[in-house]
């Protein structure tokens, strides 16, 4: 009774965004994420004062999940970004920065939330329809017959995660590995719809990055002693496999709700063991060479197997069950007898492998979409970061199969999009105004805020005090050293734009991104020779970036729409 406490009344705050404290916290969050953004982004070290290990990262998924935010508005923002990241893996920082910037910029206009939200939505649909249209000037179709674009995409992801601590050579190596692992998961004879396989990441912590590799099939970690004991039993050639889902330890898990009375002198252990040995006999007579069990195998049964030259591996764990059953073509067995012969599968070969100090059984499948990606990195934190990055890259490749386009990276998409919107709003504002509910001035104000949001997002790629320029033809992103002498010699100072598709030797004119400039019509067709030949493009995932853009604007709208915050203090 004493534990029953009366509930405290909740705290209710009006117009949360106008409060100075909320603005300050939003600004802090923005500062944290902005400084992480891009290849030259700064790292964040997160450690809990109560213990646990230190995490060094610049990735949104690691950062936001470890950062504990208290203010409800920040909570909404971070949850939204995390949800986006679980969907698309990539573009978490992009979403966060865009959202923070958008809130900040549109608030400065001083318009009512209703108008802001309505116009934001219009501008967003302008962006999405442009990005999805054929005329889009910052989108490249992916040619799956060549690896170039895919490699560029993977490499862009790797370079944008500085906490992986990879050198240029290592990036090339890992990039190639990721692409290989991905290609191994694609079934060879695809029918009308493809079911992708799985690449399992196997940790090789403490090994050098360059020692990372990809193997088809599955690796099962095993102790050296076991390996020495089991391997001599191996027969050459294809092996017949039985995969058990049920425990072979002889436990009697479920006997029903009633009671079971065992008479004196009856040994259940022996009875169960007899059952197990009978099962073993059946497996031997069925010529099974390899027995895999998710749970535990009874030692007596193990001994029985080894005397009959059957390799038995137990404690596989539930995560490996599905890939194993896929790779070997077995049906996981749930019975202690009467096994149907159709449940057995086979592997091409079983060999031992040693990576660093770890020993593995390598199951080489006949034909399967399962592969193992062995990743090494110097220390734990860097390895964790690398693992996350690889998962992101594989996921991004999967998304690219569904929507076979990539967007130009390096800030070019953002500046291009901003230039497009400026021009569109300046020349054809009727398409939005005809809907009613706002004036042309309001539209201009919000469009300007929206564009400068995109531009400042692109600008946050620059961390070393450099200046950012944009060209007046393609609307791409160019960065120049901080202490550049004069604007006259720009073609000499600049080399390539952010994504690397254009070089400065073309007849271009530049201006500072932050300066006000007149809207200009964009050259939207992409040079085919540039796309075809360039092998050093910076590219972004189309699906993830589009999703991030939508998530950011929707979340910003949501936050702007809040009139009260009620905090339950219980």
């Amino acid at each position, binding site marked *: 009774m004493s534990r029953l406490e009366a509930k405290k009344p909740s705290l209710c705050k009006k117009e949360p965004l106008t409060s100075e404290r909320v603005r300050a916290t939003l600004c802090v969050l923005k500062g944290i994420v902005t400084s992480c953004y891009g290849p030259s982004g700064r790292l964040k070290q997160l450690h809990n004062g109560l213990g646990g290990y230190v995490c060094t990262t610049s990735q949104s998924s690691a950062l936001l999940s470890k950062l504990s935010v208290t203010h409800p508005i920040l909570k909404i923002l971070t949850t939204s970004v995390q949800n986006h990241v679980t969907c698309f893996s990539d573009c978490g920082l992009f979403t966060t920065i865009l959202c923070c910037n958008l809130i900040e910029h549109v608030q400065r206009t001083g318009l009512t939330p209703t108008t802001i939200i309505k116009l934001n939505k219009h501008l967003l649909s302008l962006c999405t329809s442009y990005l999805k249209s054929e005329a889009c000037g910052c989108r490249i179709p992916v040619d799956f017959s060549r690896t170039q674009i895919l490699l560029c995409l993977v490499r862009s992801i790797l370079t944008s995660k500085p906490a992986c601590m990879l050198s240029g050579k290592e990036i090339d190596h890992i990039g190639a590995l990721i692409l290989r692992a991905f290609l191994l998961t694609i079934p060879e004879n695809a029918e009308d719809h493809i079911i992708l396989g799985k690449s399992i990441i196997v940790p090789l912590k403490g090994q050098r990055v360059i020692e990372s590799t990809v193997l088809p099939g599955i690796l099962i970690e095993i102790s050296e002693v076991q390996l020495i004991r089991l391997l001599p039993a191996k027969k050459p050639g294809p092996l017949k496999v039985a995969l058990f889902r049920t425990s072979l330890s002889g436990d009697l898990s479920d006997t029903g709700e009633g009671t079971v009375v065992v008479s004196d002198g009856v040994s259940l252990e022996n009875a169960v063991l*007899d059952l197990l040995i009978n099962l073993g006999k059946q497996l031997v007579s069925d010529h099974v060479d390899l027995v895999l069990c998710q749970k535990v195998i009874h030692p007596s049964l193990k001994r029985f197997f080894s005397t009959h030259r059957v390799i038995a591996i137990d404690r596989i764990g539930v995560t490996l069950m599905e890939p194993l059953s896929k790779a070997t073509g077995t049906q996981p067995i749930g019975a202690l007898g009467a096994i149907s012969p159709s449940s057995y599968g086979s592997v091409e070969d079983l060999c031992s492998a040693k990576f660093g100090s770890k020993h593995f059984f390598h199951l080489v499948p006949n034909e399967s979409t399962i592969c193992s990606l062995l990743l090494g990195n110097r220390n734990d934190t860097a390895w964790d970061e690398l693992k996350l990055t690889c998962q992101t890259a594989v996921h991004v490749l999967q998304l690219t199969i569904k929507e076979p386009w990539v967007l130009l990276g390096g800030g070019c998409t953002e500046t291009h999009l901003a230039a497009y919107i400026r021009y569109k709003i300046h020349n054809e504002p009727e398409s939005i105004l005809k809907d009613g509910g706002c004036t042309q001035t309001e539209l201009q104000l919000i469009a300007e805020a929206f564009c400068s949001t995109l531009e400042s997002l692109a600008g946050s790629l620059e961390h070393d005090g450099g200046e950012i320029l944009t060209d007046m033809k393609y609307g791409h992103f160019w960065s120049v050293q901080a202490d550049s002498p004069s604007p006259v010699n720009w073609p000499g100072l600049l080399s390539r734009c952010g994504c690397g598709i254009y070089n400065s030797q073309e007849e271009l004119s530049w201006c500072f991104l932050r300066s006000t400039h007149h809207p200009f019509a964009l050259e939207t067709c992409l040079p085919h020779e540039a796309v075809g030949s360039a092998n050093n493009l910076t590219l972004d995932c189309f699906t993830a970036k589009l999703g991030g853009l939508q998530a950011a604007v929707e979340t910003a709208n949501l936050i702007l729409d809040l009139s009260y915050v009620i905090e339950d203090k219980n």
Partner: protein
Amino acid sequence: MHLRGLSQQQTDLLSTPQFPAPVPNFRFLPRLFRSWLRPLCRRSSRPGSWRLLAVQIPGPMAALASMKVALQVAEVLEAIVSCCVGPEGRQVLCTKPTGEVLLSRDGGRLLEALHLEHPIARGLHAITDKEKDCLISENVQTHGKHWKNCCQWKFISQALLTFQMQTLDRVMDQYLRRHFLSIFSSAKERTVCRNSLELLLEAYFCGRVGRNHHKFISQLMCDYFFKCMSCKSGIAVFELVGDCLRELTVGVTGLPVSDSRIIDGFVLHRDFSVYCPADGDIRTVIVTEAIQPLFSTSGSEFILNSEAQFQTSQFWIMERTKAIMKHLHSQNVKLLLSSVKQPDLVIYYAELNSISVVECLSPEEVSLIQRITGLSPFVLPEASLQCEIANAALVKFCKPLILRSKRYVHIGLISSCTFIPHCIILCGPVQGLIEQCENALLGAFKMFQELFKGIDLNYMTQENNQNDTLSSLICKNSRENNQLPETGNGSVQRPHEDIVEKNKDKLEKMQTYLNICPKLVVSNVKLGTYTPCLAPKLITTDTFQTDETLKGLSPEINKATDDCELLTESNSTANSTTENTRKEMSFENLQVTKIAGKGSMLPVSLQSLDRYTSQNTFPQTMYCFSSIPAGCVLPVGGHFEILLHYYLLKYSQTCQQSEETMVSMIIANALLGIPKILYKSKKGSHSFPQIYMKAIHALQTNQPLVSNQMGLESVAGKHQLLTSVLQCLTKILTIDLVITIKRQPQKTDDQDSEDEL
């Protein structure tokens, strides 16, 4: 009721301004008192917690103070909820102690999140819980302004109640009716055209979900409506969807709202345990227990005598499971839906027999599947496996559905009822937004339920030479009650006397206040209305009429009237469904014949109308039973409120009773608060005064009202809302002192036993 038992002494105890030690005093209050208080506290969000209690105590000062507090509370709440109202309304963010973040524009939900401490606020909360809109406090607040001027809150509360019971329905029926539009394109078949449904839904979601999404969500809902309903589906479908909407929606976070869609079939919120692709004729069964036989069932004992016995039974279990799964396979069952986790053995044999398995279905999912397909759970045959499986349903398809890298089971159920199964996939950046959409959809289905039902209006009119108006009824009745012999000073009569007093002289300060629970008032008013024919008889035939007989009389009268109401209601609804003409039924009052010498036994007989009118010269009460037909709608944008405002004002001018005029006017003016909020941000010709003037002008010149806003809203919902507001108000007005008890909430059961000792 409880009133009688509350002695003067106890009332004094309560009214003592400061308890020296409140806790012990309250501990030993008699049981009766508590049970009287309980209805007042019942509405609090947590049963059993009595932090705050409201009791009524004589003393105008205390009451005045509490009124002030109530007013303040209402003002604060209004400020919060009014920002959510209407198409321009904004969101409110609520955080839960668990860290969850909720978004809402629903008044009830917000008030719940506030954990209100003030009992008046809690009272408001209880109402908004089930209500359609969040405007209550707005009304209350406006009312409150008027209370400041008059201290006779108690009296007003009664007048309000009368208003709610009589005038509102009457005005709705006689004046507002002509403005109603119908959502049905043909009244007989109750078919809804897509266009009007879109208007209705858009207006509804306008106030429910985020500003950017209401169009999209209402389109989605509209599609859903037309996809799920076959031509003959009726209210049953709304009920089914309303009950099971949580199971019929799948929330996906991380995707933009515009990715939401409707898919054919039914989605289970889990993955297959075994998936075997199958096509063609797929039969499915539902099991509620493990298929594998166990050693012993509950309550039984299994004795193991030998090792061989154990092995044999293990073997038998295996063979039996295998046989059952084979049997299912032979019967073409390809999908097994289980509400429990099945053992490995079952899973294995299911896979061997290419039967897909879905385990751990929630009871809600199972019941929904059963409702849709009419399938009952599969019972394992005891002995032979030769028989046909009767409890199997056909499904069109059964396949995995991947949403945002999470796998679901997608089944094409074939419906045996009028509901065609479809699921809504709701996407949104955060869970809170999805929940909001889900709740809004749920609300929309509830609104449909009400819209398709129609409302019964019943009110009384008195056709009398002297009194035309409605409220004079009570006055009249009471006066006649007054003629009752003074010897009967039972408690039942006392309220009547009070009313009489009040009616006689409004400004006179009352000497004693009676604690009348709202419920009691209701019954008394009812009783009062029947006395016209009763009272004279009592006088003429029976001068030794005692309190007891009166008491014995009242339940029977009530009972009899209930019957009458039932009769006429069924009559009028039957008529009104076919044609919209109002059916006025006036029927005979209760003819009570007193059998002399029988004391308290009073047989009640019901006689026909013509006989009554021919022989009766007493004031005649007309009962009007009418109904607003199902599907009545009005355009949005404060239409209902302005109309009701106008007609109430008009009605109040015809009233002879000043208090009725006053109440009508108070409510008429309070109603305007809603359009005022709606047009708050509008300027120029769309500002509230302009709109108001235009509407009033149109009404005065009998021109059709023009609305600049598209969208429709249900009349039934509005009517119910208003009724609840008035009831809530009545209750609040009856309270005049709030006593705070700083004690831990206790279990009421414990206290009961303690007191009985």
